[in-house]
């Protein structure tokens, strides 16, 4: 689990609100990897993830003067990231019919490895197995509905609490619990052939 968030609230939030470019440059340096990886795990396309990350920071830059520090800066940033990811997915839905199936247009090379489980005996290389496992895990995540996917990304990879996820997704804590329950059930079903007993 990664949790690179620095609590910048006390550091230079006032400078950021005042529109100081130096404060924003620090924000960019601190958070670009984090935002990029959230977008990458959601969209599973490197180029799209970079575009999303750029758009997130553009929105943050433009909204600086209207930012009200009611919540943590990180929560606000995560919220923007989630919204931009969801918007990007909706835009892609207009251009692909395979959205619900998580087909090639969304997953690229990770189209449907769940349909062809790896036979470790035929490919003994550990590195190869690791790569294949990555593809399988990515595909399992990709077939989750968007909100479940976001909940998993924020919980598993960012280590956020249910309360924080609820603030980001603008829902209640029981709703987050429900999202994660369903997501974990779906993941368990998708990954059960690969779980070592």
């Amino acid at each position, binding site marked *: 689990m990664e949790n690179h968030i620095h609590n910048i609230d006390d550091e230079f939030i006032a400078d950021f609100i005042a529109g100081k*470019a130096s404060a924003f440059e620090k924000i960019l340096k601190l958070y*670009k990897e984090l935002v*990029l990886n959230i977008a*990458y795990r959601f969209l599973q396309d490197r180029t799209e993830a970079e575009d999303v990350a750029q758009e997130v920071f553009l929105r943050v830059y433009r909204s600086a003067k209207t930012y009200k520090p009611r919540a943590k800066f990180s929560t606000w940033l995560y919220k923007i990231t989630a919204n931009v990811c969801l918007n990007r997915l909706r835009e892609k839905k207009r251009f692909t019919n395979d959205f619900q199936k998580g087909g090639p247009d969304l997953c690229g090379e990770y189209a449907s490895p769940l349909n062809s489980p790896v036979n470790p005996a035929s490919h003994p290389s550990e590195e190869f197995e690791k790569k294949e*496992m990555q593809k399988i895990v990515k595909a399992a995540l990709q077939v989750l509905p968007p909100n479940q996917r976001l909940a998993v990304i924020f919980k598993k990879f960012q280590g956020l609490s249910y309360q924080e996820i609820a603030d980001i997704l603008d829902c209640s804590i029981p709703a987050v619990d429900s999202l994660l329950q369903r997501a974990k059930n779906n993941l368990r079903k998708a*990954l059960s052939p690969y779980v070592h007993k």
Partner: protein
Amino acid sequence: MNSTCKKIRKRLSAFSDGELKPGKRSAVERHLSACPDCRREFEAASRAWSLLDGFETVESRENFEAEFWRIIGESGIRRPLWLRVVKALPVSALAFLCLVLGIVSGFYLGKVIFRNGETAVSFNVSLPEDSNFPYLDNFADFPKDSVAGAYIAVASQSVNSAKGGSK
């Protein structure tokens, strides 16, 4: 599956995420230790969850920030002028500029402090009583048999002969 198992399984996700209050947490722990089916379900879900650890992390491209500022520039939102100038100049040019600014400001500062030969700022300097230069304190001449006195005598002769020559 009985109703207790159904109720417990609904809590397994929050339980594994550490989101249950102590009372409910204990209830789940007790049930898992007594119910092999629920325990098997919990362990399978935990193993699948841990497989997500294999998801790779990516690094941003080196020109990510430059690209961002390029987009900002094109969209009409500008960084402050001074920041744009500073970022555009190479380090050596910046160092030279700082040097020139330092010299110029030092020059004008000197002019302000030492106006018309007088100090604009008073310096309260006094020699200690046991100064080694009593002659300077009293503005008296150096004794003629001293080295300083001999030097001043020779220098005076040179000045006088120069004056005499110019007439």
